């Protein structure tokens, strides 16, 4: 047990450790002044924060509705909302093109004059939202399902409207789970690569997020790619810690 288990753990730990150990701090700061870095950093911060806001604002009501429904068709909708989790990112990018691209399914409706959202910053946000939302919805759904139904029934018996129950009872009680889901979803959209490349391209300052900048820098400037990677990994690690703390709290309180 110890040998195979330990082998996997070493295999999982080795790449991030190597990345960290082969970077020295002065080199890291020098590389961060590389011309690719600033715009990619700003773009990633902007697009992932917008997509996080969209995911939380739209995903929380969706998860609440799904959590309350019991019927079979609703279960099917839940599966649909999970689909992007298992969809390969490149496939997600192509699918977004087929939906919202210049010749996509909705092009006649959305772009009567032939322009398209593809290869714009908005496309980056859409790709990030598409791939990350299911992670949040899933976490929110299970947080809402853990709420004691007796609390919701008593709230109704006190005359509370559905909106009031959602705002004053359901969301506060699910908050740790929602925070954990938001952290997971943010980490996923920060790392988004495949769907963004397919649907938004790799245009510096416009659609070139941190992962795409790493890919671009790899060809010309390895230290810059390395510095960006360390940066992304560090932030992802923080999100992981936040997420685990939040999910532990939501588990303990249920």
């Amino acid at each position, binding site marked *: 047990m110890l040998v195979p288990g330990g082998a996997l753990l070493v295999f999982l730990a080795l790449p991030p450790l190597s990345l960290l150990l082969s970077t020295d701090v002065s080199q890291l700061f020098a590389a961060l002044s590389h011309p690719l870095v600033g715009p990619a950093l700003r773009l990633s911060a902007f697009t992932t924060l917008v997509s996080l806001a969209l995911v939380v604002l739209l995903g929380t009501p969706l998860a609440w509705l799904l959590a309350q429904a019991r019927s079979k068709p609703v279960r099917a909708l839940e599966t649909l909302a999970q689909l992007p989790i298992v969809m390969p990112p490149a496939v997600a990018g192509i699918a977004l093109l087929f939906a919202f691209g210049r010749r996509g399914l909705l092009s006649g409706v959305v772009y009567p004059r032939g322009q398209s959202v593809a290869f714009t910053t908005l496309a980056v946000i859409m790709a990030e939202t598409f791939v990350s939302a299911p992670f949040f919805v899933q976490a929110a759904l299970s947080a809402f399902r853990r709420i004691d139904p007796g609390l919701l029934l*008593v709230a109704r*018996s006190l*005359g509370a*409207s559905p909106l009031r129950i959602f705002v*004053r009872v359901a969301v506060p009680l699910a908050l740790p789970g929602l925070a954990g889901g938001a952290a997971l979803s943010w980490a996923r959209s920060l790392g988004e690569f495949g769907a963004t490349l397919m649907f938004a391209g790799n245009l510096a300052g416009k659609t070139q997020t941190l992962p795409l900048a790493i890919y671009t820098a790899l060809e010309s400037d390895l230290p810059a790619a390395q510095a960006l990677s360390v940066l992304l990994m560090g932030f992802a690690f923080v999100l992981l810690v936040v997420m685990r703390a939040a999910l532990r709290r939501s588990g303990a309180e249920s």
Partner: protein
Amino acid sequence: MIRARLELTRGPFALRVELATSTGPLVIIGPNGAGKTTLLLALLGARRPNVGRIEIADACVFDSALGVDVCVEQRGVGYLPADYALFPHLSVAENVAFAIASQPGVSSEQRAARIQEQLQALQIGELRERRIHELSGGQKQRVALARALAAKPRALLLDEPLAALDLGSRRAVREFLRDHVAALQLPCVIVTHDPADARVLGATIAVLEAGRIAQRGTWSELVSAPASDFIADFVRS
């Protein structure tokens, strides 16, 4: 006043009940699975009977023939589940405020006054700012009662109101509950599996067995002429 006549089937189980109570508690006893909680939930509006009619305080809240089915939010029925279902993220005062804030046209001064009044009526004014997890079982029950009464219900349903308490505190809480419920002048249905509860709380006791009311009467009537083996065992224990 609560007056109900209802039939409710779920799979092989069928509940067929007629009951009426004016002010004062009606205690429902019966073995596990007899349908006691289902009956409470039907009165509350959380389970829909197949056929029947339910009247609460002279208003019809359910009538299958007329197509009437008033939702839980508008029935005006206070409900205390066995674990009291207090909102764990709110303080005692906020729990009570939740019931008042749901009513339109109540100013914040009126609300504060009513919270205080309600807490004092249940002798828990000093618990105002406490969190729920800091309360004893008996205190939780009082907060749950205060919250239910703050909504000005027309009837009260209590599911196993003493089951969550340890044996030591049960007697005192039971007597408090009896005196308080009697003073309310509200129709009240109390479900219990504890003979002591039935004896102390209930002027009238209805025995529910396998979805039917097997006997109805005072404690002494049940003792002198039990209609079934369950009732005979129940009053003797």
